[in-house]
């Protein structure tokens, strides 16, 4: 029984490691690049199967991303696997100049993003990544919600031959993707239809939005739930439809509220179809606490989603 069958929820890194090995077996161009993160990126199996195709540069993120660009220049297809705060923060200029501006087919895999390293504190949280990277040229940004979507996003990223950033979560999540659902850039998935209000979530927050929708249904509120895994490009049509067809939008993300998913949707709607919104996310550097505690602390819970949605409808 694989971890994906566990009732406790899934660590997407397991699916990531299995899919990476499958892609490498099928395509000799696939290599993994990491920063002493063989363990935390779950690359032990990959190293065993493809020892020459694991490029571990040591604790040196700037070099790691530059090396990945060079590997891509010479025809390889690197998946850069590193803890998301260090990949996106330490190597941001390399991401901008060497990968995005140079337009190399590098798949940047931000492992354990958001507040997955709860107690380790803000240095180890990756809550700014979406804001930083949304502002960085033509880079696809994907936040998969479960193992199935993680695998699909990886397959798409390799086939795209373009730069991309995938957030690969370690926080356990339930499976939320409809059977057979793949990944299409610029396409959000409506997980639950609804006419009263829309909940748009990504990653770890998708299951919480679904939970909130159940609770709202018990109160007679019909909530639409959208998984917006493709943060960039955003599915404009689906967001505009939600703005037209429901009475408000609540966005939920394990990221800072400045410049992430909520901002992306607000930027779109304010110019094309203004809607009432609540943007739930992380409002600043986190205090000490577990991931579960921090979700409570910042109101990233089904209870708070229900409260915010209800307030939005009541004040309408």
């Amino acid at each position, binding site marked *: 029984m694989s971890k994906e069958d566990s009732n406790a929820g899934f660590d997407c890194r397991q699916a990531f490691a299995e899919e990476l090995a499958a892609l490498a077996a099928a395509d000799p161009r696939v*290599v993994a690049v990491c920063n002493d993160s063989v363990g935390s990126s779950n690359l032990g199996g990959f190293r065993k199967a493809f020892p*020459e*195709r694991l*490029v571990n*540069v*040591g604790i*040196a993120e*700037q*070099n790691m*991303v*530059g*090396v*990945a*660009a*060079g*590997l*891509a*220049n*010479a*025809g*390889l297809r690197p998946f850069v696997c590193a803890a998301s705060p260090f990949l996106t923060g330490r190597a941001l*200029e*390399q991401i901008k*100049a*060497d990968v995005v*501006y*140079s*337009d*190399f087919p590098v798949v940047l895999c931000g492992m354990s993003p958001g507040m997955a390293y709860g107690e380790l504190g803000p240095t180890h949280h990756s809550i700014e990544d979406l804001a930083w990277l949304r502002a960085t040229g033509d880079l696809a940004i994907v936040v998969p919600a479960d193992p199935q979507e993680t695998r699909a996003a990886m397959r798409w990223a390799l086939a795209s031959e373009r730069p991309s950033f995938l957030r690969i979560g370690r926080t356990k999540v339930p499976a939320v993707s409809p059977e057979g659902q793949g990944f299409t850039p610029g396409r959000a998935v409506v997980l639950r239809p609804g006419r009263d209000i829309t909940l748009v979530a990504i990653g770890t927050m998708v299951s919480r939005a679904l939970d909130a929708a159940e609770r709202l249904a018990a109160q007679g509120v019909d909530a639409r739930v959208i998984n917006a895994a493709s943060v960039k490009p955003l599915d404009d049509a689906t967001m505009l439809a939600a703005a037209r067809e429901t009475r408000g939008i609540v966005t939920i993300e394990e990221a800072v509220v400045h410049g992430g998913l909520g901002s992306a949707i607000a930027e779109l709607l304010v110019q094309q179809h203004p809607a009432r919104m609540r943007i739930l996310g992380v409002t600043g550097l986190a205090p000490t606490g577990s991931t579960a505690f921090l979700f409570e602390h910042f109101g990233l819970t089904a209870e708070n989603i229900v409260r915010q949605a209800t307030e939005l409808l009541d004040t309408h």
Partner: protein
Amino acid sequence: MQFADPPAAEAAAPLVADAAAIARWRTLRDEVAAASPERRALTLQAASRHVRRQVLHTIDAAGLGHIGGDFSVTDILVTLFDAVLRIDPARPGWAQRDRFILSKGHCAAALYSVLASAGFFPEARLAHFAAPLSPLNGHPNRRKIPGVETNTGPLGHGLPVAVGCAAAAQITRQDFRTFVVLGDGELQEGSNWEAAMYAAQRGLGSLTAIVDRNRLQQGASTGDTNDLEPLPDKWRAFGWETHVVDGHSHAELQAVLAAPPGERPRAVIADTIKGKGVSFMENGVEWHHKVPSAAQYAAAIEELSK
């Protein structure tokens, strides 16, 4: 001034190979390969003078550029493109080509002049350097310029990418080589040393880093800013086969750059003079990015035409 102001549409046109220039360059390569050492030196010196004149025209037309560093790196670039690199300007995407990366991307005018001399695009396009919508951006852009391997400009980026190229050759068992030119001031960026350490760890013998050691950075000497010495010892300590050569001697450069790869990555510290070739620019810190006046332009052209 050699170039007239170009119309915008002309400046924005994509760069395409110049078949006649490629043919001339191939003849030059053959001559250089077959010539006696004396004859070869004269041929490469003439090629360098031509490139420096092109740099001067290019910067004069654009009204901007980094002429001091362009002139210090010219002989290194000419040696690489006319005597060392395994390249085919007619096939810039040829998988087996040697990779060349100009990490000190601000010296784009020198690189563009050398690429044009080899026929990657027509020399006339140098008139469009930094013009609105031109593919010839102030710093090199691989998406627009054949012969450019990666986009540089922010310092400390070229060596890590070069390490990636060389690592790919090692992983896929290909025999192409990778050459990267670094500014000396640029070595103050820590990313270079991350990459240097890892290149030695992997034993990347196909990788050669050339340091354009002109001892001046934007506002002062490297020694007065953040000293790099003992520079050869630093490279040796990082596990590199290290050489110090006269960066204006094509013969010394060619000997070390064309030597077969060893077991370790190779560092070539090329002692150079910023502004080399124009007496009043040489070793003048103000010529980092100063643009010559009309009188200075004429005087410089005269010196470079001797």
